[in-house]
């Protein structure tokens, strides 16, 4: 294992603290950017008053959420209710552990990295359901029900989509997958077809599995008031909010890693340049996701299930088969 600081434990600690705090900072400014972006898209201005261009708005928001009254309903299951928001953030951050930001810049480069983030992704439903059940509110309960159905369903195409780069690169280690794409051989571009399809499938499925916008059917403001977070106030609500955006960013980062060559880009292989490429790609994907999010209305929960079982699952199987055929064919023909 490639270790930057002394022992592996120290390496993990330093990098972990560094990356997580950097990500939390980035997330709050991602939220600021989204508000500006969505505002302009809707002929509005967006945050403006706190600081120049409203740049201090995320800090003001966090401060506001901190000083809000923290209400726990009398009938709520206190343990579940209070633990859920914390878990939501933790679980969203979990996938970061295996994410290579640059060559060697990874907290724990597991041999089964893909398996790890799939497992971590499957966990996101746990805090959601804890919130849904623990709130003892009918709307929250309905939200929790939807979340479970959605998570279970979309876990399957997610695995299939993640399998495609695994098959193509022949490894479950994320740094190997990135290395296999080095020199512009990004899986989204080459081989044509399975890579890009799997990439789209991956983003759809992981957003849906995490019940994130635009698949936030468990929250569905217009139907379920606020779904699982109906009873949450103050910072507990803020943590759900944060978890949601962290998850969106992590999904974008994983997509970049698996399908867009990760930190690969033109130029010499220095750490700073690699990091730059990575951040650039993640930002681009995030903006694309924002654009989509602010352009479409929401599907109904049962239609989302239909989409998953009837369309995404078969196409996922097809993509896996196609990539397997591709690998077999290149090995046979030795076309490399």
């Amino acid at each position: 294992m490639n270790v930057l600081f002394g022992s592996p434990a120290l390496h993990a600690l330093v990098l972990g603290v560094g990356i997580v705090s950097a990500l939390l900072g980035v997330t709050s400014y991602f939220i600021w950017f989204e508000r500006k972006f969505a505002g302009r898209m809707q002929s509005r201005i967006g945050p403006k008053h706190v600081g120049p261009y409203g740049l201090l708005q995320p800090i003001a928001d966090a401060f506001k959420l901190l000083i809000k009254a923290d209400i726990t309903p009398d009938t709520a299951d206190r343990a579940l209710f209070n633990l859920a928001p914390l878990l939501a953030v933790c679980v969203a951050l979990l996938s970061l552990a295996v994410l290579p930001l640059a060559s060697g810049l990874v907290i724990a480069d597991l041999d089964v990295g893909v398996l790890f983030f799939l497992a971590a992704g499957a966990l996101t439903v746990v805090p959601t359901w804890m919130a849904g059940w623990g709130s003892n509110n009918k709307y929250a309960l309905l939200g929790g029900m939807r979340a479970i159905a959605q998570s279970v369903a979309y876990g399957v195409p997610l695995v299939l989509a993640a399998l495609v780069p695994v098959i193509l690169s022949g490894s479950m280690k994320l740094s190997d997958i990135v290395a296999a794409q080095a020199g512009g051989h990004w899986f989204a571009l080459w081989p044509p077809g399975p890579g890009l399809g799997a990439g789209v499938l991956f983003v759809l499925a992981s957003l849906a599995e995490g019940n994130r916008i635009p698949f936030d059917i468990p929250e569905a403001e217009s139907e379920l008031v606020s779904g699982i977070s109906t009873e949450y106030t103050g910072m507990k609500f803020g943590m759900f909010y944060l978890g949601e955006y962290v998850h969106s960013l992590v999904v974008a980062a994983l997509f970049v890693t698996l399908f867009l060559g990760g930190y690969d880009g033109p130029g010499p292989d220095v750490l700073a340049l690699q990091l730059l490429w990575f951040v650039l790609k993640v930002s681009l994907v995030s903006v694309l996701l924002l654009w989509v999010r602010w352009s479409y209305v929401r599907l109904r929960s049962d239609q989302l299930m239909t989409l998953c079982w009837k369309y995404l699952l078969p196409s996922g199987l097809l993509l896996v088969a196609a990539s397997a055929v591709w690998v077999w064919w290149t090995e046979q023909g030795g076309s490399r």
Partner: protein
Amino acid sequence: MSVIAPLLDALRTTIRNLGRKPITAMHPFEPRTRAPRYRQSFALLHEANGDEACIGCKKCEKICPSEVIVVGTAAKRESPATGKKRGWADDFTLDLQACIVCELCVQVCPVDAIVMVRVPNAPGFEREDLFLTMKRLYENEALPHAPAIGSSMIASHNPAPASQAQAAAPAQEPGT
């Protein structure tokens, strides 16, 4: 393709609007221009010779649908300016909290004493802040007021032939 094309269409619409100028009006940091007829708060007017115009006839009090106007009529006495005997109001209050801004009081005023001003009453922290006393109503006189005063409104409502020419070519309104 019939699925993809409309989806792309929506994306195109949103990205096109990204380039448009925002329409947000930064109220109250930047003043909004209001139409001349805009009606918000109230004012009582003085006559040209300095007399208070209100004669305390209580017509506005009677017509107000939400009963927010209370007029106290004083005894008739001579006007200091003209020396003629006329009616006076010794109290005039208007509760803006319940006012529905229908402008009926302006319409019925026989002496054009009450008008609606274009500037909203400043928000307050007490209920009294939205309670217009006679003093505050006369203070509001300086504010720009809607062009409609009772007599001009009634004149424009008159179906007599004289007003037809006026209706066909409305005069330029003040305060534009």
